[in-house]
């Protein structure tokens, strides 16, 4: 077997003396999409944070291309788009300023590209508006606009569909499926069932695992 892109070996996560999951093994190849589901408090977000290196596992380890995550932070940073529950959007800054900074931090992009990305998520005409005046769904779109810019292969998204309208959800689903079909890798949590699933779709139910 070839080395998978992202791998979890005997992962355990404990929060406040409560074991969320234990002996979790995962192998994720390019082109796959993994939906993590389960009831509230089953450790979905924790698992995402472990995979993106934000959190340290209680036991086990996460491997990126066969190497421990700890040893190659820069490699991970080059390959990863992480959009958490809060996407790092400042209410006092405009949509464009926010996106420009996030790009500068990760993968620099031109002004045109940023405007195009904002247009792609349906925010044409809102580029110069401070984000705190936008609706919750629009703010989420500002964060998601990063997915329409540069394309590092690994996307780890925590509840990306929250606050999006029906059209926005369908569009994002299509975009995620597209990314997988082009050899990307998406790991996400969401409560709704996806309508558009790429060929490499899998689901991991943390609630059932524990039961």
């Amino acid at each position: 077997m070839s080395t998978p892109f992202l791998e979890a070996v005997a992962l355990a996560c404990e929060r406040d003396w409560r074991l969320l999951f234990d002996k979790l093994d995962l192998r994720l190849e390019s082109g796959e999409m993994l939906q993590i589901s389960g009831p509230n408090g089953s450790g979905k977000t924790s698992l995402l944070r472990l995979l993106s290196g934000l959190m340290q596992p209680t036991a086990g380890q996460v491997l990126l291309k066969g190497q421990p995550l700890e040893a190659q932070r820069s490699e991970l940073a080059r390959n990863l788009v992480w959009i958490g529950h809060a996407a790092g959007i400042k209410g006092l800054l405009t949509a464009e300023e926010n996106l420009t900074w996030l790009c500068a931090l990760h993968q620099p992009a031109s002004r045109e590209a940023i405007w195009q990305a904002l247009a792609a998520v349906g925010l044409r005409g809102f580029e110069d508006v401070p984000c705190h005046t936008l609706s919750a769904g629009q703010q989420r779109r500002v964060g998601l606009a990063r997915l329409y810019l540069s394309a590092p292969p690994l996307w780890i998204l925590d509840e990306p569909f929250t606050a999006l309208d029906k059209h926005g959800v369908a569009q994002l689903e299509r975009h995620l499926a597209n990314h997988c079909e082009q050899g990307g890798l998406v790991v996400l949590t969401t409560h709704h069932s996806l309508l558009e699933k790429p060929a490499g779709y899998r689901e991991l139910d943390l609630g059932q695992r524990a039961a």
Partner: protein
Amino acid sequence: MNWTWFHKLGSPKWFYEISGRWLPWLAWAAAILVSVGVVWGLAFAPEDYQQGNSFRIIYIHVPAAFLAQSVYVMLAVAGVVGLVWKMKLADVALQQAAPIGAWMTFIALLTGAVWGKPTWGAWWVWDARLTSMLILLFLYFGVIALGQAISNRDSAAKACAVLAIVGVVNIPIIKYSVEWWNTLHQPATFKVTEKPAMPMEMWLPLLVMVLGFYCFFAAVLLMRMRLDVLRRESRASWVKSEIKSLVGKSA
């Protein structure tokens, strides 16, 4: 150099077994050394020609002050080991040692105040050593409070480690600045703790007491750590059988 012992230290089970074997020795050593030191120091050591019998409080004050300072350094060392080698036992040691260190600092301050009354005529004097000790107590409070405030125990240990390391870098700076401050404001005060030469009969019991205090600290630390290891590893099968046998013995 053979590092297996170092990695073995990371195993809670191994630690629990080995510390169980050391504990009685340390406890007995502490008990014997402290009782010998107390009797020797309080009853047999000669009287001080300047301070009379009141100097005898150094047999408590000095060991406590020694320990208070070295425990803080130990916290920082445990912090480095915990952060760099991710050794869980270092986390345990850090968090369990902090309250003992705080108590030792408190004892040093208290005995310092008791000593100050006959010597300076006041319970509290802003002497450089006492002031540094007070600041050290605050530093301990910080580490303990931070550990209590963070609910996730791994994060709590790491945060305490960072704080202890920052603190230990600061301690020499604090110490020298306080000494400087003190000499600027109170030139040439009578310094009790700097005897030019202590006769052998005086410092030998002190040495015994210092050793006794260190053994006492080690014994208490091991006891606290063993308890915490049991709590942390409560899901492991060896802990369950250990608890069963302990409960069975007492029942």
